[in-house]
């Protein structure tokens, strides 16, 4: 049970995942206190290295570190000023001379975080690399599902949208299948990988085919920024087959939950009117809860990686 880094779901086994999910519960309790801070990582320094702009994930990691009394440095190198790889690595090494204890790294290129981890000695958490992996998102998603259903096995989940360009989809599917959830995808042909055998999921062309049978409807963000070649015809075509509108929301299975990694493109993945009902449907719409759970999962991971020598 010794992990040095959190880079990819593939490196975790079931025991790791269960341990992380279990300990996340204890960290979540801290977040419910009046004084939401414990001294567990006092004296530790965590550096957030974000090559790609991200407010949500960076803030979540920052908050997680601060709730544990660690010091946080945020470093956002502009990728334009750093062209050659050696410079990137040298910059990171310089930063680490400041004696950070753990690095949280996000980059636009798949595999970059692993590359960094091979060149520095401190633990590294992947906060998203290209289209490859976003393991902390997947773990918080699993934790959210587990908190609601109190189990994982046989939970039916439909992942809807841009599978091809989504690191969230990649890590989610990988994690959910590992933990024996039943995973389906709902996606148009141009937003699926050419070879689906890695995911090995049954795909549906329209959300209506499956919406009544699933315990979890997981809407992916349409990654327009990562779709360098836009092949999908239009938003209204997407609305017709995939968007979670009011009617589809009501057609969800009794007790089913709705999730989204955020931020939601209103009217594209989910109808704005559905989102506006979240306050009155906290048991069904989990998008806000995911954010809070994200902090707890990241606390658990920071503590886990820093509490072993």
């Amino acid at each position, binding site marked *: *049970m010794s992990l040095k880094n959190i880079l990819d779901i593939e490196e975790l086994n079931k025991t790791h995942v269960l*341990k992380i999910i*279990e*300990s996340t*519960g*204890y960290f979540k*309790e*801290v977040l419910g*206190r*009046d*004084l939401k*801070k*414990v*001294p*567990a*990582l006092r004296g530790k320094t965590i550096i957030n290295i974000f090559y790609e702009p991200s407010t949500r994930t960076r803030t979540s990691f920052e908050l997680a570190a601060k709730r*544990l009394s660690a010091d946080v440095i945020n470093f956002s190198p502009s990728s334009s000023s750093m062209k050659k790889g050696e410079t990137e690595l040298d910059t990171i090494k310089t930063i680490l001379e400041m004696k950070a204890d753990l690095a949280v790294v996000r980059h636009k290129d798949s595999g970059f975080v692993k590359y960094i981890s091979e060149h520095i000695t401190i633990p590294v958490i992947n906060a998203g690399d290209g289209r490859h992996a976003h393991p902390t998102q997947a773990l918080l998603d699993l934790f959210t599902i587990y908190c609601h259903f109190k189990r994982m096995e046989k939970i039916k989940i439909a992942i809807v949208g841009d599978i091809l360009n989504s690191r969230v989809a990649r890590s989610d599917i990988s994690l959910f299948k590992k933990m024996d959830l039943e995973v389906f995808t709902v996606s148009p042909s141009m937003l699926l990988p050419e070879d689906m055998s890695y995911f090995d999921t049954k795909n549906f062309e329209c959300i209506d085919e499956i919406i009544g049978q699933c315990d979890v409807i997981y809407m992916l963000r349409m990654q327009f920024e990562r779709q360098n070649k836009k092949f999908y015809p239009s938003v209204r075509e997407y609305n017709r087959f995939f968007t979670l509108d009011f009617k589809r929301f009501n057609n969800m299975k009794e007790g089913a939950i709705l999730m989204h990694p955020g931020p939601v493109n209103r009217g594209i993945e989910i109808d704005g009117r559905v989102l506006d009902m979240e306050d009155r449907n906290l048991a069904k719409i989990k998008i806000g809860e995911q954010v809070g759970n994200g902090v707890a999962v990241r606390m658990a991971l920071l503590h*886990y990686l*820093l*509490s*072993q*020598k």
Partner: protein
Amino acid sequence: MREKATVLNESDMDRIVKRIAHEIIERNKGSNNLIFLGIQKKGIPLAERIRDHIENLEKTKIDFGKLDISFYRDDIDKKIKTDFNITDIPFEIKDKDIILVDDVLFTGRTIRAALDAIMDFGRPKSIQLVVLIDRGHRELPIRADYVGKNLPTSLNEYVEVMFKEIEGEDKVSICWI
């Protein structure tokens, strides 16, 4: 680790619980402002027993909470510690007299961490410490208010406390490491 000698048996432990319950009532002139906090894990059953006994004697209800001090340890670099337990304090502790309960008092570091943890939940009127065994070797200026048994030990000995609720029997023994 092998057993060396039994220090307390079931009836010894039962007598200690009753004695300490009486001491607490006497010292606090009743049980009105008391709340109990057991330190995870072995402080919980002991705290429950003392609390239950006082409730019986006083015919009253006393709040009971569980405290895990993992987040407050000062030795994160020294040992692998990923076994968390729940902290559950579903009531106000402000201005209360807290009876903090643990099984063994040794270096005092656990109690130091517990005091920090309690302060994060509010400002109690007082904190009184109950331990089943005080084995000496303090590294911090901490003492217990109620002690089940003072047990002088050497550093290469280990005190093992067992409770029916956890191990299936009530017993305290001293072991070689």
